[in-house]
């Protein structure tokens, strides 16, 4: 099985006080810690497990800046065989449709059985790129995959529906699957792995290498554009309970006692 995994290098924002940047269209990213998109971490793990069981190769691909190398190197350290990064300032600020288009150009040049993406990116959360990519590649897809069983020339997967329900889907290869969290337990990077990764190939491509012209990418040909980004202020949203932990605890107890819950 030759597997391609699309990975994105994203800022970790859960515990950070975010600010909007000068453009007013995105967050200020300086000082933030970046890592692999959570869903992609599960996708990379799944690909490596399939390779370990059935043989073949794992290639990780990203569209992003040079900083993404950190994420690519970590994927290589875990067991991916090679990495490809597409970097071109003409792609910056492109929408997910353009990202899918660029990825499809990279993938079309390769031989593969399976393309894995995350179910969604944690920064923009479009849940778009995977299935859009399948359409551009002219191959089938299924999303939110929680289990993969490899058969001859096809896979049988469980995909997640609402409320804990799952659907069993059979799909012909080559195909695109978008991976849901919890499908496996992603491994940690080992020291050995990091050493090996240094010797693995990391290719950098530009639009010219892909035969894509400026008018096929960039803001102009994007479907959507972020016009403004904003953060609602907390005071307007919720009644805050303030004070020392003991004071807060007393107030919470008062509130729930008032509701007859204690």
């Amino acid at each position, binding site marked *: 099985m030759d597997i391609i995994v699309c990975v994105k290098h994203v800022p970790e924002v859960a515990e950070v006080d975010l600010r909007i940047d000068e453009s007013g269209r995105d967050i200020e990213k300086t000082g933030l810690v970046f890592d692999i998109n959570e869903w992609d971490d599960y996708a990379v793990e799944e690909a490596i497990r399939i390779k370990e069981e059935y043989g073949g190769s794992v290639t990780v691909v990203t569209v992003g800046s040079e900083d993404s190398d950190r994420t690519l190197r970590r994927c290589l350290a875990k067991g991916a065989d090679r990495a490809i990064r597409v970097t071109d300032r003409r792609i910056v600020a492109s929408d997910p449709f353009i990202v899918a288009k660029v990825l499809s150009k990279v993938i079309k040049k390769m031989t593969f059985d399976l393309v894995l993406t995350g179910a969604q990116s944690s920064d923009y959360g479009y849940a778009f790129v995977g299935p859009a990519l399948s359409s551009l590649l002219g191959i089938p897809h299924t999303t939110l995959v929680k289990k993969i069983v490899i058969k001859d020339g096809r896979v049988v997967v469980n995909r997640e529906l609402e*409320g804990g*329900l799952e659907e069993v889907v059979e799909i012909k290869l080559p195909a695109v699957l978008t991976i849901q969290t919890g499908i496996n337990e992603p491994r940690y990077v080992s020291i050995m792995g990091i050493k090996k990764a240094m010797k693995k190939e990391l290719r950098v491509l530009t639009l010219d290498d892909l035969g894509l012209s400026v008018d096929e990418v960039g803001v102009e040909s*994007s479907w959507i554009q972020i016009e*403004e980004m904003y953060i609602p202020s907390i005071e307007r949203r919720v009644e805050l309970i303030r004070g020392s932990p003991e004071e807060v*605890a007393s107030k919470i107890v008062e509130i729930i006692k008032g509701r007859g819950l204690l």
Partner: protein
Amino acid sequence: MREILVLAEHRRGEIREITFEMLTKGRDIAEKTKSELASIILGKNIKDKAEVLSRYSDKVLVVEDDRLELFNSDIYQEALSHIIIERKPLIIMIGHTSYGVELAPSLAVSLSTPLVTDCLDLFFENGHLTAIRQMYGGKTYAKIKVKKADSYMVTFRQGVTQPVERNFKGEIVEIPSPILKEPIKKKVLDYVLPSVGEVDISSADILVSLGRGIKDRSNISLGEELAKVLGGVLACSRPIVDKGWLPRDRQVGASGKTVKPKLYLALGISGAFQHIVGMKDSQLIISVNKDPNAPIFNISHYGVVDDLFKIVPALINKIKEVKKIK
């Protein structure tokens, strides 16, 4: 007259709530753009479902075909492509659900129709379709401008629009199935029902719910203790289940359980919409999170911006004191 076309979502004989939410939002857009609000339902033996849709729509399109019995996005795409090309709706609305995310992107790409996913709101501004959506796990909002086109496609988030029951009597139109090609690359074989767990969190009055902020498996016991003194039950967000720290039957949210307890205590939960959709109707929501911008505060009645490892022990002590437990 142009159409706003809403794809009705149904599963195992039930029309799903997102359909009525979209029809409510769709009505608003139809009025503003002087369009007609149409709903479309595809499936096998679904004619009887058209009645309820007609109460919300100016027109209900019904497509019956045995091959549409299960939700296979390939077959849906084939059927919808023909219909969309013929009718040229102004906006096609699809739920941002497990079915919608499977269908919409590849349908949009194949028709070259611009798509915005996971919209919370939609309107036209200076001639541009404009969408409001969240980004960065719900910590920021973005106003998205869509490129001008003849038709647009959106996926719409569940649980943000209050469905308004209407008394329209939309015309029901049966459309002959336009499916030509047998899809051969993807087959939907079966459903797997969730296993019945030991604990039914949806029947508890008090839920103490833990998120990734609990940091480590060994800290789960802190939540357990609070649940015990409160006489409540322990629940959690998805990452806690993904990591195997609590069993799946404890998960609250879109892919877990929907709960409406008298008290929901959210500890170290950021409030991603897939979590919120499962607990926002709780009678009293108190959240503890050290990040003042955590979206969980959008739907909480009371918020504590602090470290849960300081607040929870103090709360346990206070409750013990009040209840005179030693």
